[in-house]
C-alpha cells in the first residue's frame, strides 16, 4: 500500500520511524527469536551428530600412519621421482626411522602399524616390515638398499618403494579405490582389483537390489491393507490399526528373534509344513540365515513405514470419486486405475522412499538372520570397524553409502517434504 503513496506521507510508527522499517525490524526480531528457539538443538545435533560424521568423512581419505611411523623418510621420499629405486640416502633415512620406531613401540606409531598399512596395498607384505625392523639397527653402513635386499629379496621389488612413497602421504584415495574394487598398479595407474577380490561393488548392487525387492514387497502387502483401513468405519479401522502399530512399537530385536523362531529349520513354519505334509521331515526348507531370511524379516519390520503414509493419503480420498467414475461407465479396474490409483501416488512416493532409505542402511537384522549371502553393505562397514580394523576402508564405504542415502533423502524432501512425516 505504501508503494502507491507519495513519499511525503509515509506511514510512521509511534516513534517516528517509517512503518515499513519498523515492521522489517520487528519481523527480523521475530525471525531471530524463532531461530533462537531451535538454536540449542541445532548446536546439539551439529556437535553430537554432524561432527562425528564429518570425522568419519575425513578418516576415509586422511590416513597418517606412514608419517607417524617413519616421519623423516615420509618427508624425503616425496622428492623421489619414482624411477628405479630411491637414492641410497633416502633408504638410509628409512632404515633409521624403522629402527627408531621399533625401539620406541609407541601406540599407533609402530612398525606393525606401517606393515598393516602397506599390507592393504601389497597383500602378504607384513612380515617384510616386521622382520626387517627387527634387524634394522644392525644395518649401519651403505649401500643400504643392498643390505635390505640381503635381508629379504622382496626389497628388490620396485613396487614396494612406489607403494611406500604413496602410503607416506597423509591424504590418499586408496581407500575409495579399495571400496570400489580398484587399486593402483606399479605405475600408479588405477586398475580394477583381481576378480577374486571384488566384493564391495557387487555388495552395493546387491544391497540396492535387495532393498528394492523389500520395498516392492512392502508396497504390494501394504497397499491392500492401507486401502482396507481407509475404507472401514473409524472404530473398526482404529482397532485394526493396532495390528499395524504394535509391530511398529515392538523392539527390532524382539521381532528378529520372533522370525528366527518362525523360520529356522526346526522352527514353527517348517514344523507346520511337515505336520501338514507339504514337505517331509528330511527336507526342511532353509528359510533363514540366507537372503530369504533377511528379506522376510525386513519386510515385516519395515511394513508399518509403508502402511502409515499410504493410509494417511488414502483416508483423504473421498469414496464418491470412485462411485462417480463407475456411474459414468468405468469398469471397476478402470475406475481404480484411472481415478483411485493416481490419487494415492503421493502416499506411494512417501512410503517407497522411506522404506528404501531405511532398508539400504540396515545392519542388525541382516547380521542376525542373513547368514552369509543375506548380508548388506552396512554389515561390511561394521566388520571393518570392529574386526578387520581397516577403519579407513570402513569410513570410505560408509561415505559412499551416506552419499546414496542423502541423495534419496534430498529426493524425498523434494517430492514429499520432511514436514509430512507422521507416525500413527
Amino acid at each position, binding site marked *: 500500500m505504501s508503494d502507491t503513496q507519495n513519499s511525503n506521507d509515509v506511514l510512521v510508527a509511534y516513534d517516528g520511524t517509517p512503518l515499513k522499517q519498523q515492521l522489517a525490524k520487528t519481523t527480523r526480531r*521475530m*525471525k531471530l527469536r*524463532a*531461530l533462537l*528457539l*531451535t538454536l*540449542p*538443538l*541445532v548446536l*546439539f*545435533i551439529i556437535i*553430537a*551428530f*554432524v*561432527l*562425528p560424521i564429518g*570425522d568419519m568423512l575425513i*578418516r576415509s581419505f586422511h590416513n597418517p600412519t606412514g608419517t607417524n611411523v617413519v616421519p623423516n623418510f615420509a618427508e624425503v621420499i616425496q622428492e623421489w621421482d619414482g624411477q628405479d629405486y630411491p637414492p641410497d640416502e633416502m633408504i638410509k633415512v628409512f632404515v633409521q626411522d624403522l629402527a627408531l620406531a621399533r625401539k620406541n613401540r609407541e601406540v599407533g606409531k609402530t612398525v606393525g602399524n606401517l606393515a598393516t598399512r602397506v599390507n592393504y596395498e601389497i597383500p602378504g607384505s607384513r612380515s617384510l616390515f616386521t622382520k626387517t625392523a627387527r634387524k634394522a639397527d644392525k644395518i649401519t653402513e651403505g649401500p643400504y638398499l643392498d643390505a635390505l635386499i640381503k635381508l629379504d629379496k622382496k626389497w628388490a621389488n620396485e613396487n614396494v618403494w612406489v607403494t611406500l612413497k604413496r602410503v607416506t602421504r597423509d591424504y590418499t584415495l586408496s581407500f575409495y579405490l579399495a571400496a570400489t574394487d580398484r587399486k593402483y598398479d606399479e605405475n600408479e595407474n588405477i586398475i580394477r582389483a583381481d576378480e577374486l577380490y571384488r566384493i564391495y561393488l557387487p555388495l552395493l548392487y546387491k544391497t540396492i537390489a535387495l532393498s528394492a525387492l523389500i520395498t516392492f514387497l512392502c508396497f504390494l*502387502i501394504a497397499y*491392500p*491393507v492401507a486401502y*482396507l483401513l481407509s475404507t472401514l468405519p473409524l472404530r473398526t479401522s482404529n482397532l*485394526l490399526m493396532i495390528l499395524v*502399530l*504394535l*509391530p511398529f512399537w515392538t*523392539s*527390532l*530385536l*524382539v*521381532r*528378529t*528373534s*520372533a522370525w*528366527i*523362531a*518362525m523360520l*529356522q529349520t*526346526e522352527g*514353527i513354519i517348517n514344523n507346520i509344513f511337515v*505336520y*501338514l505334509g507339504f514337505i517331509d521331515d528330511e527336507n526342511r526348507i532353509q528359510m533363514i540365515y540366507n537372503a530369504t531370511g533377511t528379506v522376510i524379516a525386513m519386510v515385516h519390520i519395515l*511394513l508399518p513405514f509403508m502402511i502409515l503414509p499410504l493410509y494417511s493419503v488414502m483416508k483423504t480420498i473421498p469414496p464418491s470419486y470412485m462411485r462417480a467414475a463407475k456411474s459414468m461407465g468405468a469398469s*471397476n479396474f478402470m475406475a481404480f486405475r484411472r481415478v483411485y490409483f493416481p490419487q494415492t501416488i503421493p502416499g506411494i512416493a512417501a512410503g517407497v522412499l522411506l522404506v528404501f532409505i531405511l532398508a539400504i*542402511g540396515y*545392519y*542388525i537384522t541382516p*547380521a542376525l538372520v542373513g547368514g552369509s549371502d543375506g548380508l548388506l553393505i*552396512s554389515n561390511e*562397514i*561394521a566388520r571393518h*570397524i570392529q574386526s578387520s580394523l581397516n*577403519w579407513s576402508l570402513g569410513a570410505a564405504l560408509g561415505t559412499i*553409502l*551416506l552419499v546414496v*542415502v542423502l541423495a534419496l533423502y534430498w529426493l524425498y*524432501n523434494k517430492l514429499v517434504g520432511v*514436514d509430512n*512425516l507422521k*507416525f500413527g
Partner: protein
Amino acid sequence: MTASQRVKTPGFQALVVATIIFALFTQSVGGTIGFFILFGIPLFAMTPLPPYASRGERIWHYAFLATCTLIFLFLILPILIIIPLSFNTEPYFSFTEGMIALDPEAYSTRWYADIFRFGMTAPDAVEGWWEDMWENATWIRAFRNSFFLAIASTILATTLGTLAALGLSRPEMPFRSAITSLLISPMIVPLVITATGMFFFYGGTMQGVIPGYPDGLAKTYLGLVLAHTTLGVPFVIITVTATLSGFDRSLIRASQSLGASGFTTFFKVVMPLILPGMISGALFAFSTSLDEVVAVIFMADVDQRTIPRQMFSGLREQISPTILAVATILVIMSIILLTTVELLRRRSERLRGLSPG
C-alpha cells in the same frame, strides 16, 4: 444380518469349498479347523457387500478380505508366538509335542527365573540374594542400563526437541525446511554410519576435550546418552510439530495481551495444549532408545550393555529361550506404550476439535 443369513452368503460357501479342498489336500484335522477359523473370522466381522454386487465383485471382495487377513496375521503372529514359546520347558525356540497337547509339564517359567539368575555369583544362596541379583545378574544389569539411558536421553531429547519444534512451527521461521531436514536426518542416516562416526569422534577426536573425560566419551554413559538423544530427537520434532500445526496461535496473542510473560504463556497456555504431543514424542524417543543397539554395539563397554545388546549377542552365540522371556516382557511394554500414545493422540485430536472423539 444374522448368523444364519451369513452362512447362506456366497463368501461362506466359498470358504466351505476352500476348506474341503484344504482338508483333502493336507489330510489333517487340526490344520483344517485352523484354516476354517482363520478365514471365517473376517466374513463375520466385516460389513457385507451391497445386494447389487455382481458375482465377480463378490469373489473379488472375499479374496481381498482373505488377503488382508493373511497380511494382518503376518504382521502380528510372529510377535504373539513368542509369548507361549517363552514358557517352553525345553531349551528350544519351537513348540514341543507336550506344548501342543497342552501338557502343563511342558510349560515352565524357568526362563523368566533365568533373567534374574543368569550371571549371579550365587543364584542359590539365601543371604544377599537380592543384592547379588541387582548387582551381578546380566539381564538385570541390562535392564538397569537400558532404562537409565532411555530416561536420560528422553528428557534431553524432549526438552531440546520441543523448544526447537516451537521455533519451527512459527510462521516467521527462516530456513525452516533446511533446519527441519537437518534435525530429522539422524532418523534417515543409516545407524551404522552414525555409530561409526560417533565411535571415531567420541572416542578418538574428543580425547581431552571435555573436562572430566580425558579419554573421550567412548565407553561412557554420557557418550551413549548423547547418541541416544540424537536418535530420539527426530521423533520428538515430528510429533510435536504435528501437534503444533493445529495450534491456534491467537491464544498466545490473547495471553500476551492480558499481560502474561512468554514463560507464563508457554507453561499456562501452550504446554497444556501440546502436552499430549510432547508426551507422545517423549514416548517415541523412549522407545527408540530402548530399542537402539547399533550405537551401543560400537560404543558401550561390557558393563554398559543394554537389553537389545544382550539379546543381540545371545542370538548370535547361544540361543536360549531366556531371550524369548525378555522379548515377552518387551512386547508387554510396547503394548503399554502404544496404548498410551493412542489414547493421547485421540485426546489431543479431541482437544483440537479434529475428531468427534
